[in-house]
């Protein structure tokens, strides 16, 4: 068992003073702080929630917790899907959502400095107003930027622009010991020792607490349009993806989706956008592709070229969303998949495996067969352009224990398959507490030990977010 200390009244008073009173205790700690959006990985209410406003408050609180071996779980908006923000060992939750200021833009260097609690949507909207684009585009628009960085969130535009990692220039970090340090700088290249900033990105709050971020932004594309491309089946849809990439059409987003999940999402949002039957042919799967261009002529050329290519590759038709409303409606259906599944499902788990794009069809066929073998209902969609698949396991009739057992068997098999074809456990959601076992198997002991060693260097008392990614106190 872990040997974290209990939060005594005296320690609470010390933390309250260090955080200038920004602390919730007792009945003020709501259940929301006990969970993220995937409660199947366990829930636990923290002993206290600290809601700091400044880096200095975070540092002062961390020092007290480090000196007294109190577990600290950093948390943003709590929209994670792997249990990352759940305080499994009690102690305090460090909620960064009150640090929510967009500090300022450096337009000449195309960068913006923000506090970690700014929501993704707030920054995206603020950039849009100024003709700028913050390229990462995770499905959950109400996540905090600190959380996005901590999970290296990907999203729809990763196929063209890369993931959050590619847009983090610099950060201020409070180490578990309470020291304040800065990683990275606002430059576009560096060869200056180990990249500590890259260690922080995707570390899921296990190495330090991010209190300020400088993010890269780009000028917004002048013209965008999306194509809804129905195919008779998933295989036909997926086999078109490498052709689109090889043709150098450089789509901004390239998503695949099967008919069932589209219908479920359209029911949820109350709109019907994706065609089900075209000229007597039933659509079984779709690609949703976005292109961007500097003017209308260039955009039309891209649309025409892409349409010709996909029709030749077996698409039933090509529908064009080139007005703001039509684009919004097409993407609203895609963005609501998770909420639509949640609304129709009592027990839910998820795998966000990533495989080379040439193995998507093979992997999904394997996953569907394995689900049948395990007697599990699954719903899949994903980022066809980068091989990141979201496979949801759903049940409305199994007991929780039975569901977990079947999911575990399913996961063991499909993660092994992912490793076999050169894939990784998580494309963008992270490891949290839910996927450690599968990560260990996928990476092997050597790599896990390297990660644990790094963890120990940053966090010698192992107080920060225990039970996540690579370290559990019971090991």
């Amino acid at each position, binding site marked *: 068992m872990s040997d974290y200390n209990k939060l005594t009244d005296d320690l609470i008073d010390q933390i309250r003073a260090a955080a200038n009173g920004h602390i919730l205790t007792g009945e003020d700690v709501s259940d929301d702080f006990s969970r993220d959006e995937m409660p199947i990985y366990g829930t636990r209410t923290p002993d206290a929630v600290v809601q700091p406003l400044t880096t200095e408050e975070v540092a002062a609180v961390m020092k007290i917790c480090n000196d007294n071996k109190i577990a600290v779980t950093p948390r943003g908006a709590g929209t994670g899907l792997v249990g990352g923000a759940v305080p499994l060992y009690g102690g305090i939750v460090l909620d960064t959502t009150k640090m929510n200021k967009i500090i300022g833009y450096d337009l000449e260097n195309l960068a913006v400095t923000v506090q970690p609690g700014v929501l993704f949507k707030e920054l995206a909207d603020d950039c*849009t107003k100024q003709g700028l684009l913050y390229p990462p585009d995770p499905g959950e628009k109400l996540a905090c930027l600190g959380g996005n960085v901590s999970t290296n969130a990907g999203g729809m535009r990763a196929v063209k622009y890369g993931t959050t990692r590619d847009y983090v220039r610099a950060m201020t970090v409070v180490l578990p010991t309470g020291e304040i340090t800065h990683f990275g700088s606002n430059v576009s290249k560096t060869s200056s020792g180990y990249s500590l900033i890259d260690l922080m990105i995707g570390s899921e709050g296990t190495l330090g607490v991010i209190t300020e971020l400088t993010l890269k932004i780009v000028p917004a594309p002048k013209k965008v349009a999306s194509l809804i491309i129905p195919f008779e089946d998933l295989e036909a849809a997926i086999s078109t993806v490498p052709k689109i990439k090889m043709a150098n059409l450089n789509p901004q987003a390239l998503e695949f989706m099967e008919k069932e999940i589209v219908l479920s999402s359209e029911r949820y949002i109350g709109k*019907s*956008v994706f065609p089900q039957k075209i000229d007597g042919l039933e659509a079984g799967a779709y690609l949703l592709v976005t292109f961007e261009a500097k003017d209308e002529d260039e955009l039309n050329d891209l649309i025409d070229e892409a349409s010709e290519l996909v029709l030749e590759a077996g698409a039933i038709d*090509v529908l*064009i969303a080139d007005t*703001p409303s039509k684009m*919004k409606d097409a993407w609203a259906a895609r963005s609501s998949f998770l909420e639509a599944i949640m609304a129709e499902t009592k027990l839910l788990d998820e795998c966000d495996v990533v495989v080379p794009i040439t193995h998507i069809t093979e992997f999904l066929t394997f996953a569907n067969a394995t689900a049948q073998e395990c007697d599990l209902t699954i719903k899949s969609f994903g980022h066809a352009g980068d091989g990141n698949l979201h496979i949801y396991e759903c049940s409305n009739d199994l007991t929780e224990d039975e569901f977990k057992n079947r999911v575990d068997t399913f996961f063991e098999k499909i993660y092994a398959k992912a490793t076999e074809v050169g894939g990784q456990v998580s494309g963008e959601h992270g490891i949290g507490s839910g996927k450690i076992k599968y990560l260990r198997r996928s990476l092997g002991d050597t790599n896990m030990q390297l990660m644990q060693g790094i963890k120990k260097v940053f966090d010698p008392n192992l107080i920060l977010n225990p039970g996540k990614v690579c370290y559990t106190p019971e090991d």
Partner: protein
Amino acid sequence: MEFLVCVKQVPDDSVEIHLNPETSTPDLSQADPEAGAFDTYAEELAVRFIEENEGSVTVVSVGTEDNKTCIKNSIAVGASSGYVVADEGTDCLDSAQVADLLAAAAAKIEEQEGKKFDIILCGKESTDAIGGQVGPLLAEKLNLPLVENAVEITSVDGGISVKQETDTGFMMYEIATPAVVTISKPDYDPRYPTIRSKMAARKAKIPTLSLSDLGITDLASEAKISSLGFEEPKKRQAGIKINETEAEEAVKKAMDQMIADKAL
């Protein structure tokens, strides 16, 4: 049935609009123009009608030459022809002026295409000014029957049956044609253009009707509204948090505050 659908080009309503500090007019630079939502429902309703029966759909838009993009989008989803009314001053008109131009344009298009419109459709309101006046004014100017907020039109002997959405349910009307009908949100969404229809629409010729084409010499005299200027809505002030733990004290504090603010 021959349909004329009147379409207004409006800024994308999902973008938050602020005033340009230099001109004190709305800064629309980040809001791409598109057809008003209710106008697109009107187009879809008309196209569905002619697919089930027969006839054709013509679209017309008052504004500038830029409105041709929006007309081409209409042609890509089933309209057979489209026109823009564009001339000096036609980009900034009130509802009465727009209705006047649409009435003249309807007559001109009928003359040019050698047909009579049976049904003139407008969206029930635009998504920018939300006046909801153009349809009724147009019916008045053309001296035609009018039904507002319709969600369904079917053909009956001697005219059409129109299902009107009301606050409490639906009203059914049977009216003679020609008629003007304004359209609310039906229980379906406008279709998406296909690549083939889009490519064809790009090549479509969209004639421009000038004021002189329409025989209008004095546009200004029709104006019923003059704009005095624009102001941004006042920022909402932060609320007052009542932290009293006892219900009685909390209610008293809330009441006192409301009395002080003259809300009670």
